[in-house]
């Protein structure tokens, strides 16, 4: 008879670690055990990031082999990843073995390639958001879309100095919107997240949810 020990073992480990970490908040003697478990989890999270990078590389290698339409982008991604990895490895060797500080080559790549690309994407997003705001009443003409449309306009117009000085009503309206409706919505959202986190934690602790498999 074939026995599957994987599922019971993983479930027992998950529930046991969760109970110990939770009990560490209330029992001082368990604080050291709790910290050991958290530090182990930290190392595992770093390893998981490395595993994720390897998986990403393998996926795009496969896409390159199938001659798909967007396989060129996969080639660029793989070349960039390998180049950055090589640069980071060289920088790490120089930093930790030779003593050249602060990863200068890596910083150069980040400053002159990564940062401009991301800020440019944000600029394009800004143009797209403006266009979407102008188009919202064409796509969906309802009471909620109209309210959303005028609230956006009100917050924008109250965000520059001319309105705050010469049109104080805009400033008052902006403060009221942010502090009353927006704050109430934020509090409700936080309470909902907290309740959901408690429920999810209890389900994992009791073994009802097993996101780790098994």
């Amino acid at each position, binding site marked *: 008879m074939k026995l599957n020990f994987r599922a019971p073992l993983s479930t027992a480990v998950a529930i046991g670690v969760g109970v110990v970490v939770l009990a560490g908040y209330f029992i001082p003697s368990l604080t050291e055990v709790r*910290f050991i478990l958290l530090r182990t989890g*930290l190392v595992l*999270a*770093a390893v998981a990031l490395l595993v994720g990078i390897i998986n990403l590389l393998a996926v795009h290698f496969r896409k390159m082999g199938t001659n798909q339409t967007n396989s060129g982008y996969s080639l660029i991604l793989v070349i960039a990843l390998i180049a950055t990895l090589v640069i980071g490895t060289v920088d790490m060797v120089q930093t930790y073995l030779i003593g050249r500080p602060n990863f200068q080559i890596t910083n150069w790549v980040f400053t002159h390639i990564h940062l401009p690309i991301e800020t440019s994407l944000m600029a394009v997003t800004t*143009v797209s958001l403006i266009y979407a705001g*102008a188009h919202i009443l064409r796509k969906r003409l*309802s009471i909620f879309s109209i309210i959303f*449309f005028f609230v956006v306009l009100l917050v924008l117009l109250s965000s520059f*100095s001319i309105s705050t000085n010469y049109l104080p009503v805009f400033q008052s309206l902006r403060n009221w919107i942010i502090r009353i409706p927006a704050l109430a919505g934020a509090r409700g959202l936080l309470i909902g997240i907290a309740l959901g986190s408690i429920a999810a934690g209890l389900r994992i602790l009791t073994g009802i949810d097993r996101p780790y498999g098994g």
Partner: protein
Amino acid sequence: MMAEIICQMCGQANPEDQDTCQNCDARLSPLVASTPEDQIPEEPQDSPPDLTPVEDQTAAEDLPTPDLEDDDPSSWLDELRDDDEPDDDDLLPSSFADAEEPADADTDWLDRIKKLDGESADQEEEIEKTGDAFPSWMTADTETQPASEDHEPPDDSPEELPEWLQLETDELGLEPEEDQSGEEDADYQQLRELLGEDSEQEDPQPESREIPDAVQSGADREPPREEPKQEPDSEKEERASIFPSWAAEEKTHPPDIGEIDTEDIPADLQFLTGEEPAKEKTAESVDPFDIGGDDEEDLFDDLFEEDLPSWLTSAVDEDQDQDASAAISPGDLPGWVQAMRPVVEETGRSGLAEDEEYIENYGPLAGIASIIPAEADIESSKPGDATQSSLTLSVSKTQREYAELLEKVIGQESKSETVPEPVSAPTQRVLRWLITLLLIVTLGGAIIFGRGIENQPLNNSNQERSGHVALYELISDLEEEEPILIAFDYQPALLGELSYSASSVIDHLISQGVYISMISTQPTGPALAEYFIQTTQVKHEYAPGLNYINLGYLPGGAAGLLSFTIEPTKIIPLAFNGSNAWDSPPLAEVNAINDFSLILIITDDPTTAKIWVEQVQTSSTPDMGMIVSAQAEPLIQAYYHTSPRQISGYVAGVLGGYAYEQLSENPNLANTAWLPYNLGIILAAAVIFVGGLANGILTLVKGQNKGPRGEGSS
């Protein structure tokens, strides 16, 4: 020689002028036939009708005869007459009953004998087997007379038979002898006259004659007397096909009467053989009308129940039931039950009669009606019929219409519809490019040519409640060389907003002479921190490792942050540059998270801000300030507008940075970018307002032209 009349009851010869038997007082001739015109003409005695088979006669000789000399045979008949059962004459029509009353006086006792014991199976069986109306033990006295030398041969000629017997025999549909047909017609005519019917309407076929109910009931009581006669083979076969197999077999092979012993005689008639019936088998008589109790309501309740009434069920003798069930073996039906099997009068060749009611002739279901005939189906489904059937499908007009409709529906499904391309695509692309050019030109011009323009100060009416004021006061309270922790947890895309918002705050911190430690939960955070220090705080000439230290990336999300809060020295032992972080001047006096004087989080994500508050913020931790993007401000306020405050102060967006610069009276990046920022907001608001208004009007116009539209329609 004077003619003698043989009594049908006791067999004694009586003078011709006697109306009743000298022995048993039974009437020798019915009153109906007593009139002179109804006298039956004498027939030659050389051809007496043989009413019973020879076997019956010989068997009857063996039967013990009662002692007629010592006991009056009519006494037990008189006792039967005293029974409370209703007279059969009540069932007859009044005229017929009156006419038959003298005959009933002699014949009614036969019916009563048969009815007395409904379980006299042997008697019924014998009646059916012999086809005679009289049991063998009854006919023995009369039929065996010619065989004995002491008595004269019995005169069973039709003219000497009582007319009431002849009439009844004729009415039962029996086929008379050919030489007696004329007399039978006369008798039948006489009966028809008595019933008041027209003789001209009678059916010449005996089978189709309408038998009066009263006579028919009599026929039911007495099976028709059949006389053996020579029949052709074809007729025998036809008769065999008409009757069920078991009935036909009994007809062709009549039972041996000689085998009948005294046990075949019913219990009620055992006294005729001189034996006393077993008393223990006699059922206890119960008066059905005896309530047996004082409460009549119980009686009526029992009557209206579905089950048998209690007085009826109580009358059942359990011993008798047990004896009866033991006597009847399964599979061996009693004779009286077999006698109840209906005799099939006529069935067609296929087994179906005219009224389509089928009665099984063969097998264990013989005699049972309404059975699905197998022969008809077999005949209708001959093997050759399948090949002869046509393959052409006969379709009605309605079916053809339905088929055409189905074909039309399927044909429409298979057709492909050409979807026209949206004509608004070129217009949208132009609009996007128009917006892009407008923003580039406006903001570029403001950046290039707007440096000399003095910015308008903000309205400071609500500064006491603002987050940037609280943060400014908190930083102002810091002393030199106090360690502070700054988290750079934002994406590089938000560098433009957050660097302009945080530059004045970081500048204020550096101005205070504090040690700065930088950490990030984002992989790009350490590089961003280095870039920020090198681009915005160049003037302070802060040296890494001396005035500030970069702790690098903290993996693990919330768990990593909690671990760093508990044991920061063990989680991140080395700095981003590979040096021992905790031996450097910024962290020389720091062993735990509580040793920092201020924790400042720069983030664009409300979730990241929430994690920092939840995992790090405790009652013993130092003050926490935040520099967030404008999009995260509503969520951050929830931690600021509380008591006690979980966030001591915050700066949100470029607007907050500009306010902080004004408050610190130290113009920085926010001040330089203020004019393009304002122009960009105005331009964006104008585009959104004009475009939204135009699109809204177009949508309303289209909606009026096309009718009501759904909420989600585009």
